[in-house]
């Protein structure tokens, strides 16, 4: 190979060195773009998922829904105040502890219900799921009937949803 031929080969090597990097970037960018498009096609709105999960809070007697003791009839969109505590919430919505921070977590509050305490009448304490870090993504509001020892009254259940920390 003469000197000019050697120069050509060297020049091509530089070209292919740069082209290799550029092409790799293009391939990676293309793959990422397609993955993003696929994510768009399979996207589920967090409001929908949160709404469907939170149905259990007010409709399932194993969560907080009120069940008539004699007939066994479950009152939909109701809260039995005796069940409204953190223990029941974490039995009702069970996430495995190691990935709980990645999943939906909830903070539930009744806005107009008061209970008696040693210091007087107080608002019902808010309840939280495991690994709730006060990073609310959205809030759902549900009109509910609250059953307590005094009877029944209307209230609003605020469901604060933490989609991901």
């Amino acid at each position: 190979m003469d000197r000019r031929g050697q120069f050509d080969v060297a020049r091509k090597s530089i070209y292919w060195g740069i082209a290799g990097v550029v092409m790799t970037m293009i391939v990676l960018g293309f793959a990422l773009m397609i993955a993003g498009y696929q994510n768009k096609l399979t996207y589920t709105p967090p409001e929908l998922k949160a709404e469907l999960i939170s149905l259990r809070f007010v409709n399932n007697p194993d969560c907080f829904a009120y069940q008539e003791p004699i007939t066994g009839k479950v009152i939909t969109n109701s809260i039995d105040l005796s069940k409204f505590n953190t223990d029941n919430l974490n039995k009702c919505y069970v996430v495995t502890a190691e990935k709980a921070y990645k999943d939906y977590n909830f903070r539930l509050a009744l806005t107009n219900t008061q209970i008696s305490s040693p210091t007087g009448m107080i608002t019902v304490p808010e309840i939280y799921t495991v690994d709730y870090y006060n990073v609310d993504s959205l809030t759902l509001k549900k009109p509910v009937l609250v059953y307590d020892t005094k009877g029944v009254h209307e209230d609003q259940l605020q469901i604060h949803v933490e989609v991901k920390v």
Partner: protein
Amino acid sequence: MIIKMNKKGDSILLVLFEVLAVVLIAFTMIRIAQGFASSETVIKQNTAQDIALMVNTLVGVPGDAIVEYPANLSNYNLVMDSTSITLKSISLPELKKPGVDRTAYFYLPNGYTAGGILEAKSRLCLEKKSKSITLGECHGP
């Protein structure tokens, strides 16, 4: 023996190498695109997610209930346990690769169980009986 190649020979070799590289890259990109963007993958992911949402909905229903998934699932095998639903493509001779399994997760209250296997059936039903949710084939009209 040393074979010396003239400049023209070098150029032809380099051009061949370039053409091969371009063909290889194009082929790779098309394969990646096919893998990611095939409707099969999207359908599986969406179906798994739909069924997980249906399970969440059934948990929120007082009493027993049964619901049919409104799509033909005869190309898939489904496996459900108490935490997740997985969709697998059935292995057909015309399908070279069965594709990636897709899984969606749901969270049941304490004491609830979910389970079931459905192999290449067109109609899927989810049935809630007391604290048990079962995946199976639909019967009746």
